[in-house]
């Protein structure tokens, strides 16, 4: 009989391949096994993230070729030198460093206010009060609004012929008569729109952090005679800081990629963010310049991620967390 024959001839020689692999995995260390399980993820990341990034880098090493399709000759790092030294400023709406300043300024200011307001909201929502569920739901409404709608809401508020907000603000000397086409005013309005929409997101993540804090710590603090402020500084803030940093990281990354709200509200010419420059140079068939700015933007974002990760690790260490 077949079964008997197989047994007789030795099971190990006819074991099916996947069984053999499973047997092999049984013998590897726990760490090695974890890496094996991560292989598909690494492959996926390589295909969808690393390869496009490398391809972008490759494109950035060639010249723009306006008169034909694609890119021109290989020039090495010349595009980076040109962009960073300002030689491409004519084609970058207002210059690369201006774009960096606009983008970083937008990210820093908007994330600062979002964090501050988000923390405040989270602290309020962490308390027990009647209608808390409703308030939680209500603050989420702006977060649910699509970027284009958000842009249109603010556009209609500040468009000179329709928006009711323009004239009073102009009379107060706060804004010009055409705020959406004046860089300074539009910048402020973009930050306002961003804070309006995304503070709720910050609040929710920070709230999750707050609710994971062991409540008995507050009892201990109270017994030890700590004031409300001392309890916040010594218990709440350090313990919620990792959650705040995670929220700030997400928001900063999103803010560094700001594009949709700019296009909808003020246009890239008025507030030329880095992503605006990437898109506009791509549309002008400057594929190499576009790739150069894209790669530089990715570099800046990587540095920001690095800073956040260091801070995150520090904050975890301070509260005795596992790094």
């Amino acid at each position: 009989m077949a079964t008997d024959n197989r047994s007789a001839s030795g099971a190990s020689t006819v074991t099916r391949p996947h069984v053999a692999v499973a047997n092999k995995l049984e013998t590897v260390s726990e760490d090695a096994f974890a890496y094996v399980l991560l292989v598909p993820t690494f492959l996926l990341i390589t295909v969808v993230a690393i390869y496009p990034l490398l391809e972008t880098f490759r494109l950035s090493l060639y010249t723009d070729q306006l008169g034909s399709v694609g890119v021109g000759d290989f020039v090495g790092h010349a595009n980076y030198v040109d962009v960073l030294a300002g030689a491409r400023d004519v084609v970058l709406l207002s210059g690369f460093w201006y774009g960096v300043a606009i983008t970083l300024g937008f990210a820093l200011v908007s994330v600062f206010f979002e964090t501050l307001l988000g923390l405040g909201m989270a602290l309020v929502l962490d308390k027990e009060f009647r209608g808390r569920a409703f308030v939680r739901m209500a603050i989420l409404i702006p977060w649910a609004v699509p970027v284009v709608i958000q842009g249109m809401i603010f556009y209609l508020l500040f468009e000179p012929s329709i928006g009711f907000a323009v004239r009073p603000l102009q009379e107060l000397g706060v804004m010009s008569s055409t705020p959406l086409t004046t860089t300074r005013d539009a910048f402020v309005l973009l930050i306002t729109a961003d804070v309006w929409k995304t503070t709720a997101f910050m609040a929710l993540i920070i709230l999750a952090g707050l609710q994971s804090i062991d409540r008995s710590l507050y009892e201990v603090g109270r017994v030890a005679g700590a004031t409300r402020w001392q309890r916040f500084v010594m218990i709440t803030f350090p313990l919620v800081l990792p959650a705040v940093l995670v929220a700030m990281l997400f928001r900063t990354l999103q803010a560094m990629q700001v594009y949709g709200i700019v296009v909808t509200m003020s246009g890239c010419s008025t507030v030329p963010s880095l992503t605006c420059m990437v898109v506009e140079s791509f549309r002008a068939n400057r594929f190499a310049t576009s790739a150069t700015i894209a790669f530089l933007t990715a570099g800046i974002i990587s540095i920001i991620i690095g800073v956040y990760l260091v801070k995150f690790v520090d904050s975890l260490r301070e509260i005795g967390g596992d790094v």
Partner: protein
Amino acid sequence: MSRRRFVRGVGATGAAAGSIAAAGCAAAPWGGSDDDVPEGAEDYDTVISWHGGFADDESDDVKDDVREALWDAGLSKEIYVDIQQSSDSTDDVLDQYTTWLSAGRSDPDILNMDSGWTIPFIERGQLGRIDEYMSEDRIAEIEEDYFPASVDSVRDEDGNLHGLPVFVDLGLMHYRKDLVEAAGYDPDGEGWATEPPTWQEFSEAVGAAMEEDDGIENGFTFQADNYEGLSCCNFNEWITTWGGAYFGDHENLHANVGDRPITVEDEPVLDAIRMIRTFIHGSDADDTLDDFEGGISTEAVLGWNEDPSLGPYGDGRVIANRNWSYAAAMHAQDDDEDGAGFGEDHGVMPIPYAVTEDEAEYEGTGGTAAALGGWNAVPNPNSENLDAVAEVLEALMDPEFQLFVFEHPLIGNIPPRSEALEDDDAEDIPVMGRYVDSIRVAGETATARPVTSLWPDQSSATASRVHSALQGDETPEDAMSDLADDLEQLEQEAD
């Protein structure tokens, strides 16, 4: 957007708009799989796919009407034209065409291209010459009879044609004839419809009409946002009507890149900016002109493109608005339930001017000038049916067909040549028929945008500098000096 607005303006009712059964990516050449054959085309030998067609929101009925009209215009009954829906966003369409042509796709057979972005495709070698499959007579007909600026928008530097202008949009001055007449002017008697007043006379007429009517908030509105429409169109019209230019003679608009003079620092260009600053900021402000009526335009124009500037005009709060030809169809109809129609009180004239052609230094400048908008039918060089495509183009050239398109209440596009507009039938068309003379003058004097492969960057720099000067962030001299540097730097790149 413009065509949809036009359609709405003409006031056709009962349109089955929105019932678009886009044929998707129907592979055009007959012989593809059955799934590729558009509905209704099963019985024809050849299917030609035409991306864009005439209107953004063509219903199946309109497509049927167009097909019938093409057959009436001589297209072989064996050929079925599959009109495919395109996006409302011209940026999206441009991106789509860039991808398709770069990939060498054979479908669609015909691409509708904005007259402003046909030339870069030609320069990149992505479009073929139509004289390779169209007869000499037809090519000569396009060269001789079509509006010159439209033909230039499909021509390469050697003069070869790569597409066919299908319809035009033209910059025109729309104004309230009743209000101007109440201020003591006689537009009909002075023939403004074909011989517009000078900018100075125009500003005085608008100023007088503003004084006459307390309900009027603004005299003259236009588009001065920092966008392509400023550089391609409004600024282009202003400087041309002042005898100024981007690159000297207009023959340089599409040619001699790298060797052409940069003339944006010339006095006529500066005066054009000063004139607009006068309109916006009043004649007491810096960098303005004393001879012009000041303060007739709101500062809001600095943030307006076409639709926002037209809105207040349609609401009856403005005397004059510079806009495209379709705006007449929207506001010259008789009063409708929305109160949007001014009927015969809606006047149209070509854009005013500051110097005559004889007084202008550069060829092609001076006198009235209309920025050219509109669309071209451009054959896909990878099409497997170029002979049939040529037949479709020939049918599109038929004057009767062009009149049909102009007349059709759901299309209403303006033909790209005078002949179709001179027809008595054209003057009998409801609403738009009243303005064919102005449209013809605007078509003959249309000025093309200086489109080359450098234009996207040059346009962006121009809009930014001009907007800055109009806003008062820079003087006209400084802004144009900076612009000249920008343009020069970009021109050097072409060498």
